[in-house]
Structures are given as C-alpha cells and as structure tokens.
C-alpha cells in the first residue's frame, strides 16, 4: 500500500498552479491536484490513481476564505470543511449547507479535507453533490484561458468526474443565501456514523397559503451523481402538507430514480426504498422548520 513514484510540486499562487498544470500538460505529464488528500491519498496508496505529478494547493492561502457577497456565500476551494462547520455565517445564512457539512466523515476528516476537494472529487455519496443540486450552486473554475462559472447541473458529469479540465483549478463554490421562510431538511442513512451515505436527501420548500411551493428534493448516494427528483417536487407543489402526501411523494421519488447502485452495504432495491423513507422524513422535518 505505497504510492507509485510521482513528482511533487507546491506552487504558492493560483497563477503558478495554473501555469504549472499547463506546462505539465504540454510535457505530456499526467498531473493531479492535491488538496486535503483525504480521498486522493488512499487512492494513491492503493495505486488506483497513479499520476506522474502531484500539484499540492496547500500553500495557496488565497483560496481559503468564506464570505458573503451579492446574495451568495462564497467559499474558497482550499477552505477546510471544519471551517464551514465552525462558520457562524454559514450556519445562519445557509443552514442546509451547514447541516450537510456535519455529516461529512469525522471531525478529523473535516479538519483536513477541503471544500474544493469534495466538489472536485464528485463522489456519488458526497453530501455536497446533493447540496449543489438542491441550492443550484455555482462553481468557479480557473484555467489558462481564465475563469468559468459552471452551474451544479452541468458541473457533475459522472462517477468521480466533474467538469474541471486537467489544466484547471476549482477555486470557489457559491451558494445562495437561504431565503427567509424556507423550510429545509437534510437526512442520510449510513452504516456507521461518519461513513459515506448509502442514501441521503436534501429538501427545501416554502409554504404559500398553507400549500407547499418551491419544493426542491435532491438525492445522493444512490446513483453515480446526485440528482433532483422532479416528479416528486411537482407532486408536492401547490398541495397542503400532510403525512399522506409526503408518503406519496416518497413513493414517487423512489419510482423516478435511475437504477440505484448496489454494493456490499446496500442493494439497489434497498437504496430505492430508503429514498422513499428519507424523502418523507425530510419533508416532515422541512415543513416543521417553516414554523
């Protein structure tokens, strides 16, 4: 369990990092960005990833920030998940993102792992995948040709693959501040506390004249990428919340899923059924929160 040989670089600025990635690309050297290493290091040790060069972003301090600007919370890619967990700003203005963060691994993982790393890694079971979908987050990617802003729906391409080119760096993620009167919930099922989820859902909704509106349901851990569940959302919009309605929404959500992943922890059939339960429970919790 030792990595294959690689060259190691630790640029100090974003510009240097991008220039270096471009040069390595030109030289036909396969490079990988190293952030917190919580996903990449195990893959290196198992020789499942064997880049010829590692570009460590750890010295680029300018990518470590959390700020509110233009109705968004902007988080630098190299901000640790622990910083998100500890951020009063995020807890107050984007509580769904905050709640999801607490489910990522254990505190030791959150100390070391970065926000950018989680988004870039695009693990099917990553909480942030569902949050990105649910909140319609934007990802800022910088490359030799400058900056691109990618919306969540386009950002996640497939299993462990995000829309980031080999010469690009994910620099920032942006989540809108949560609108007042929004009810939200985040729940997941894992085998043990801190494990990657075998299924999870994020929900936001509002109530208008006692009826559900703007319902958003995102699911993760079930398919290769997190997804919105449009049929269930539609079913709910304009209807008065009730246990029976939410049960039905769960059924619809479960039915509209693509064929779920099957592994040693959970069959596809089980995952599909968990989504029904999670959606129902999240809806109940979200409505409760609207107050």
């Amino acid at each position, binding site marked *: *369990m*030792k990595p294959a*040989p690689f060259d190691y670089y630790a640029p100090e600025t974003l510009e240097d990092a991008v220039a270096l990635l471009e040069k390595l690309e030109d030289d036909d050297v396969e490079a990988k960005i190293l952030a917190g290493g919580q996903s990449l290091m195990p893959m290196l040790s198992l*020789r499942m990833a064997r880049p010829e060069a590692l570009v460590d972003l750890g010295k680029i301090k300018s990518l470590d920030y959390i700020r509110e600007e233009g109705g968004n919370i902007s988080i630098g890619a190299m901000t640790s998940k622990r910083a998100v967990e500890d951020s009063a700003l995020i807890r107050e203005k984007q509580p769904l993102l905050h709640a999801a963060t607490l489910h990522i691994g254990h505190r030791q993982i959150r100390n070391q792992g970065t926000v950018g790393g989680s988004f870039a890694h695009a693990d099917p079971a990553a909480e942030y995948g569902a949050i990105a979908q649910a909140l319609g987050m934007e990802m800022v990617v910088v490359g030799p040709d400058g900056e691109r802003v990618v919306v969540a729906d386009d950002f996640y391409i497939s299993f462990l693959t995000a829309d980031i080119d080999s010469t690009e760096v994910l620099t920032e993620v942006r989540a809108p501040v949560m609108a007042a009167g929004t009810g939200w919930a985040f729940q997941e*099922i894992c*085998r*043990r506390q801190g494990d990657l989820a075998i299924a999870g859902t994020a929900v936001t909704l509002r109530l208008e004249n006692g009826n559900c509106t703007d319902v958003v349901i995102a699911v993760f851990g079930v398919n290769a990428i997190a997804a919105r569940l449009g049929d269930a959302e539609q079913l709910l919009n304009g209807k008065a919340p009730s246990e029976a309605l939410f049960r039905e929404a769960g059924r619809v959500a479960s039915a509209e899923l693509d064929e779920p992943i099957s592994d*040693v922890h*959970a069959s596809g059939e*089980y995952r599909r059924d968990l989504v029904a339960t999670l959606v129902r429970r999240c809806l109940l919790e979200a409505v409760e929160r609207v107050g």
Partner: protein
Amino acid sequence: MAITIPGSPQDMPTTAPRYVGKEVKRIEDPALVTGTAEFIDNFALPGMAHAAILRSPHPHAKILRVDTSAAEQMPGVVAVLTGADIKRWCNVGTTAPEGWGSTPMAVDKVRFVGEPVAAVAATSRYVAEDALELIEVEYESLPTVRNPQDAVAADAPLIFDNQPSNVIQDRTYTWGEVDQVFDDADHVYTEKFRWNRVGANPMETFGCICHWDVVNNSLTCYGSYQTPSFIALGRAASLNLPSNRVRVVSHPHGGSFGGKGGPRGTDIAALLSRKANGKPVKYIEDRVEYLLAGAGQSWDRYYQASLAVTADGKLTGFKVDLVDDQGAGAEGYGTISAAKPLAAFTGCYTIEAAQYHMKLVATNRAPTYAYRGYGPPPHNVVLESMVDIAARDLGMDPVDIRRRNYIQPDQFPYTIPSGNEYDSGSYAAVLDKVINMSEYQAMRQQQREAREQGRLLGIGVVNTVEPGVFDWNAYSTVGVPGVGVPEGVKVAIDILGHITVTLGFTLEGQGQYTLAAQLVADYFGVEMDSVRVTYASTDVAPPHFGHGGSRLGVALSGAIMGACKKIEEKFRLVVAGLMQCEPDHVELMDGHMRVQGMPGAEMPVAQVAGTMLGRSDLLPPGMEPSPEATYVWTADDRNEPDDQGRCKSYLTAANACHIALVEVDRDTGITQILKYFIVDDCGTRLNPANVEGQIQGSVAQGVGAVLYEEYVYSEADGQPLVSLFSDYLLPGIHEVPMTEKAFIETPSPVAPLGAKGCGEGAIHTTPATIVCAVNDAIAHLGVQTRETPISPNRLWKLLQDVVEEN
C-alpha cells in the same frame, strides 16, 4: 517438592493484599499510549531490507509460469523469492488435522485470493512494491469452490490434491440418550441459522523482522507474535531448522485477538533474508493484505439446531448440525473453533442429552483463524435463540425459562453432556442482579408503550458460560494432541531486594504485566514499583504459551504463586539457619520472614536475598545462593478425551448475563442499541479494571460481529468483495454502547487465587443478546432474523416481507 498454589488472595502471605483485587494503575500503559513501546514497525536493524508480497488475484488457479527477471534487475532490489525457492527450502506447514496445509508461498497452485505467490526484498517498501509490478505470473484458472455446497458437490474440484475430498472433518458426537429425550419431549423446535464470516482486526496488523544467520544456520524473528514459542516451533518445522535454532522475539503489539497470524509472513521474510545472504528483512502486513488474506477471518457457519423441551419449559435435549466453511485448508487452526463449543455446549442449563454433528469443509475462501472467543459466539447465538423460540411458543418470559433450567450452585462441580466440568457458578444470582440493575419490568413496560406508537423495541436476555483456561485436550478431537499448556515465569530477587519477573509473552493490551507486579508485590510485601516485569525471547524464557483461550491471567497467577512459593521455601531454610530454629517455624508474612512464637525475630525479604547473594558463609551448608525460582504452571487434573470427545478441558467456567434494549427502525432496518447491562461472575477479580476492560472491548467486538462486520465473498465467482475498512465495518465509539456493569464473585475452587478466565465472555454473549433483542422487537410481526450480521439491508428485507404480506 509439591508446591501448593494459594486458592484465594487470603491465602497469600499478607494480612491484607494492597494490590491484588484493586484497580491499580497499569504499569504498561504509559509506554503503550505514548507509543514508546517498541512496536515492530518502530524497530530497525542495521542494513535491513523491506519485503512486499505478490498475491494471487484468483481464488483457485494453477501457476504456469513466474517470471521475476525484470524485478531482479530493478535497482534497490536485494532478493526475489518464488515457488522454486520454497520447493527447495520449505516443508508444508503443520495443520490440525494434518494434511490440510500449504507452503508459505504457493508453488504449483493458488487456493485463495491473496495467497502469496512471490516476494521481493528491497531498500524500501516503496521500491519493493514497484518491483512486484514487474513480476509476471501466468495462471490457469480452476473451477472455484465458492462455498460448502460447492465443496461437497459430486464433481467438486479438489482443493488439496492429497485429500480424497474437500471435507476436512465430518464427525458426530452423541452425548446421553438423545433420541430418547427428543422422543419424550413435548415440544421439539428446529431452526436454521447462518453466521457470516467475521474476524479479529487488531489496530496493528502483523509485522516482523527476520534475520537468517547464514554462518550459524539459525533464524531470529522479531515481530508482533501472540504465541511466540508456538510460532518458533512452527517455523522450525516449515523452514527445516532444529527447533533450538529458531529464536522468536515478540514485540509489544497493538492487539491481536488471534489475528496476529504470522506464519506465512515470517517464513517469507526469513527466506528473503536467507536469499539476501543474511540481510535482515522487515515485513509489515498492510490492511489490504490483512483483510484479504491475513489471520482475520473466522467462523463461517451454517447451522441447523433442535431443542427438546417439556410442556413446562424444561430443556432436555439439544442437537446442533454445523457446516463450517474453513476456507482454503486448516493452516489457521480454524478447526479448533468448531471444537471449542464442546467445553460449554449446553450453556448454563441442565440439558441432559446433546448431539453435535460438525462438518468442516475446505473452500477457496481465505483460511480461517482463531478469533477471540474461538467459536462459541455463533454457537451461543444458536443456543440462546433456540431458548427464546421455546419461551415464545410456551408463552414464557425469556427470564423465566432460563431460570427454570439453570445448573444450581449446589450441583457444582457439574459435568455437562459434552464432557467438560464446570467448577462453580451462581447463575440465578447473576440473573437477579442484572434484572434489578436494568429495571427489567420497567423496560418491558416501555416496550409495550412504544409498540402502541408503532415503534419496535426489543429486549434480549442472554446468559452464557465462558470456558476459561484452555487446555490442548479440548482440541485433540481436531488433531492437536496433548494435555496441559505449560506457562512459566522466573521470579528473581536481587542483592538490593528488587524483584524481577521474567516471562515469555509480551504486551498485547490486556494488562498481565500489571497483574504480575501486583501478585509479586503482595506476595513479598514490597511496593509494586519495585517489581519489574520483563520479557524473555523463546530461547531463554521458561516454557510458555502466552495469550489465548482466556487463560493467561489464571495461568500467570499460578506460575507466579509457584515461583514465589519456591523462593519462600528457600528463604525459610536460610532464616532457620540464621535464627537457629526449625524451617517449619519460619513463615513469610507482610514482607518479613518471621520465626513463629519469637516476637522480633524476623528479617525483611530483601535482607534474606542479600544474605543469600552476599554472605555464603551464613547459608546452610551446600545451599545454592540463588534467591530466584522458575515455576511452570499448568492446570491439574486434565485428561484425554474419550471416544465422544468428552474430557475435563477448560479449568474454569465464568458466566455472565447480558440484557440489551434495542430499537429497530421499521422503515430502514437499522438497529440501535438503547441500553446495555452486564452482570458477570469470573470468580476473584484480581484487577477489576482489567476485567472491565476485557468486558467492554469484548462487547465492542460482539456488536461488530452481530451488526456490522462481514467478509463478503461474491456469490457469483467466489471473489472477496471486502479489502478495505470502508467495506469491513468495525464499530466505532458511536456504535458501541458504554455498558452498565456489575458483578458477582463466586471464586473458583480449583484455580489459582479463585480467578476464572474472563477474556472472552462478552463476545460469547453480546451477539446472542442483540439477536434475541432484535427478534423480541419484531417477533409479533411474524418474522425472525437468523442471520448475522443483522445489517440494515437484511433486516429491512425481512420487514419488507411482512409489509408485502399485509
């Protein structure tokens, strides 16, 4: 001279023990928790190379060709080992039963995924792993024996060509009038169970440094060895060396639980060292190697059991039919774990007749090894589940049916149908205590109320007997002959009165070094601080076995008491000479040799030792100036098994009763442990903190086995699907309940100081407790779980069937 070992702390030469029976601070912990103990991976020898092992990706295949030429050329590589070297230098490893073993590396064919095929020693582990990638192996796949059904199929491929079939052992034991008892029973319950493969996972995997002395043709192995002398003997056999030319030095290790294994890794590192002309070679097993093919897999079982019961709830007969998937042979002594249940086959109950059919088969799964508990945990799931099945059918409370069938205190020593003799116990008292502590009736009320709200709460009440202080006779039925397990220590007092205890096992976590210091300090009335406990390698230590079979606390106590007593006898002669009295009139008490009836005529122990070593002129003529003694202890009165495997095997019978309250989430199948209570009785508690540690740790492993852990193999092609800790789920601090504990002390009338083995009782009991609790939560729905681990997916599936039926 026969030595009498004190049967109780009161019999020790002290008016009141200052350390024995107390929660003294453990002397080994500072080094362990600061990492300054010499763990094997922190240890280096000059010029040492590092090994990496190439392992089979196939469950069953012929090896057609191994080409190592490119690896040999790689800079930094110092030796490459293949089957050809093995053929030249090695013997097939000994197994129980014989004939089901392998060489340390596959020669002509591989029998499981992860079996070593080639190995490299290089300047670093990194280089060694790079070199492995240059080795080419050509395989020809053979049909895979995925499971026992495959193994016994008419056209099953043979895993061991030297054997007529894949059945390692097929044997039925009959104890008492089983047929009669079942004929006479008012009720006979029969059920099937499946216990999936789990095993030990110590924090530290196996590691060693082997040094082949090419000049003297001898071998030294430094490593994290659980049973050093056993390993030394095995290496001598497999590497063709006289047993006195193998020296094993065991380093402190981060747990073992039976999982340290080490034979193959040691042999490979030793032969790499031999091939590298005596350069020491380090091999550290990594977690992937461990999970795939280390010594961490055990108990892969299919059961059918029947229980005979009278109308009023008396249990009269118990039949168990076991098919045990041993994996690829018997090299890990997994067979023993099928035999061990004989030592407590019928648990706490007066069941009069029993039958055990065990069929141990070889498959292309990894070989199975010892794991803490060594077999009874699944057996107890079966027995205790059957008792609950009877209770439910008869409308009895699980507490009442158990109480009704207990062996009573006045029935001890009690011989169970499978032959072992239980020394003592107070089962009803233990039960009463845990019922009070848990407020059992209030929990039942809570359960009823929860059920009205649609919640599924369940209570498990389970009691078991823990056979303690194993003896080889328990395993002669599977081919490990012998009676007795010698454990020796040397106690020496120096000229200044400081005492050193030398023993043959090292730190593994249980706290035996502390126990040694407690015992010696109280025996000679000195401070614990002034007792040093030190390890001796196999070449110089007295005969020893070390950790295993819930024996070491008791065996060590016996050995230390014996050695101290021998020194006391010598001191008696010295002091009698000095004080001009009869030796019989001299006694040791509170650190002084005293002459009875002569107030003031006494000498501190240190002074007697000093006299022996420094004033030979004052000693009785001809006396050896040696204030030290070695004593080798083994349990008395053990015998060979009869034709039905019956013998007095394990010396002590501790027992415990656990009560758990669980909640099952009907929608997700998740089981949550809400409360957990334990009362146990392991006789004299020599160090209550150590006992509690054993219980809590053992509960953790029980929770893991029953809810989380599983070595999953593909049903389609027999490939292992678990090789990482993200898939083999050990329970963490969030999953393991902090149990509420209390105890009762029924001292053993036969064991040193009245202590009973207590290292495994909780893992014997916890899985059954949780299974019974979950079933108690869901029984009214008409379903029951009979398979472990009770993963959410499995339980959801069961509950789903109910939903669909309704």
